[in-house]
């Protein structure tokens, strides 16, 4: 399962936005990747996400694999929209 988002926070996926994303997916058992610029990292890894240095305006794809993958994607969508991190595309 996967879904793409356009990141709209002024600072991109740094600090606070990265923290929010990682915290929201950590409770799920499914594995989850963040794909940006042809490079994918584990979305449960704060270091990995920050090292991606996703800038504002970038399009990222989140793909999940596992029994609760669907719940994970819907949770992450809800968090991204409600916390103003980005929009679906």
């Amino acid at each position: 399962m996967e879904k793409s988002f356009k990141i709209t926070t002024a600072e991109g996926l740094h600090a606070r936005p990265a923290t929010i994303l990682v915290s929201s997916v950590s409770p799920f058992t499914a594995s989850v990747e963040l794909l940006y610029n042809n490079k994918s990292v584990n979305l449960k890894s704060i270091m990995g996400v920050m090292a991606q240095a996703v800038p504002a305006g970038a399009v990222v794809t989140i793909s999940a694999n596992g029994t609760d993958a669907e719940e994970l994607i819907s949770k992450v969508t809800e968090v991204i929209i409600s916390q103003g991190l980005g929009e679906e595309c």
Partner: protein
Amino acid sequence: MLEINGISISKGITLAPAYCLAEPDLSFDKVKITHVDSEIDRLKEAMAKTKLDLIAIRDAAMYKFGEEKAEIFSAHLLILEDPEIFSAIEAKINEKMNAESALDEVCIMYSCMFESMDNDYMKERAADIRDVCKRILAHLLHVELPDYSRISREVIIVAEDLTPSMTAQLDKQFVRGFVTDIGGRTSHSAILARAMGIPAIVGTKNASKNITNGSPLIIDGLKGKVIVNATEDVQARYRASSKELEKDNELLKKYITLPSISADGHIVEIAGNIGNPNDVDAIIANGGDGIGLFRTEFLFMDRMELPTEEEQFDAYKTVLSKMDGKPTVVRTLDIGGDKELPYLKLPAEINPFLGYRAIRLCLDQQSIFRTQLRALLRASMYGNLKIMFPMIATLDEFRRAKAILLEEKQKLLDGGALVNDQIEIGMMVEIPSAAVIADLFAQEADFLSIGTNDLIQYTLAADRMNEKISYLYQPYHPAVLRLIKMVIDAAHNHGKWVGMCGEMAGDEVAIPILLALGLDEFSMSSASILKTRGQISKLNKDQLNDQLEHILQLKTSIEVELYVKKYFLNLK
């Protein structure tokens, strides 16, 4: 029982257990292991303990400092639980590396990766990774890490030295005193101790190595020593003297509302030195007549970037409003020397005290200077502001600084802003060249303020941070006294007032001499104000004038000290 001698910063006595801020020994050997599973269990256990620490610290920070400061520890928890970091360490343990080495290698790998990024925010994340790894490592080695923010009982802080960032983390409510290995009377820890009004012994050379965490300590500020593990008898005796001192302080309280006036009716101003807006309360509580020195550099320290004009405006406005019309002398940014701002990325210098600092830096990096001046000018409507420039060596520097100030003022007025019309513009006299031509400066400055800490170090060519030559820090050296006399006479000849904002202004031996020389304003730490007012109220200026000629003819610092102690302090 062990006694350690050092330099006393204030005359108080305090008893409390030691709290050592030493960096613990986290060295380990790189060894090959045989049992991979038990090594991974060791790692997991250390990480679980680290998690408990971080949660406790986060909650304490939330309670004490608010959400913003606590957020950093939430970030640390995420780093700790990062699956990529754990599997990287695990992979190395699977290759028979011990947990300590595996952790260290992964920590270095990640912190280097972040440090090499072309983004200041990311670079700082390297410090977070190292911080988390250090906590795990400490648990692996069963070493306890000090945690400055979790102090919740009265303690005496023991450290090799206190850095500004350490002190920023301290919950000052529980700190009863400081003991440090290095530093002299004007070091950062000394200034901090005076601002907090607590006893401190600095320059002990080795106290931090001889004192263990939690041992009962006594600071005897009168004798300049620390007593470790004192017997019951000794502790009881000190508790009694501590009560006596409290009683003396109680007696001094009558001076809070009394004017600063000598026995024969000569009026002076006794003002306070501050580093940030919170310090104003202590000045007011001690009945200060004004603020003689606001060290604005503390607004610039312990942060990641320059404070904005608005932040500065708020700070200056707060200080001026609280002072309610009393004279408030603000010194423009004095950075450099022992006060570094990492974010300015200034190259290290071989002789920082003779280098690129204070007004020299401000005249060069004018946007920093102009921002500060605009904030000050806008805040001037809220009180009685006087502005002074630090480290002036030449008349040209003073003229340029003043011209920039007037330029910014005109710009603000043109833009429709309100600026107080009565702001006095003065300067620090702390470089001998400025003292020698004080008569020329007095024609162009509204006031002069003598900064004795630097004036003494430059006059005697003695770095005040260098303990090996601390004997050269001689406030009563005849050369220093004569320079001070030159400055005061020159200013008075041109109808200007003179203040002093170095440690000397609150020194009981210097005070009779300074009063006789005609010093108008004595500015000191809040804790010294009442004692000084009490001392001056008992001195007779006319009588002192008769002795002044003789004092100025004495040949050495020690002769001056003994003379004053004998005739004016009734001490031997």
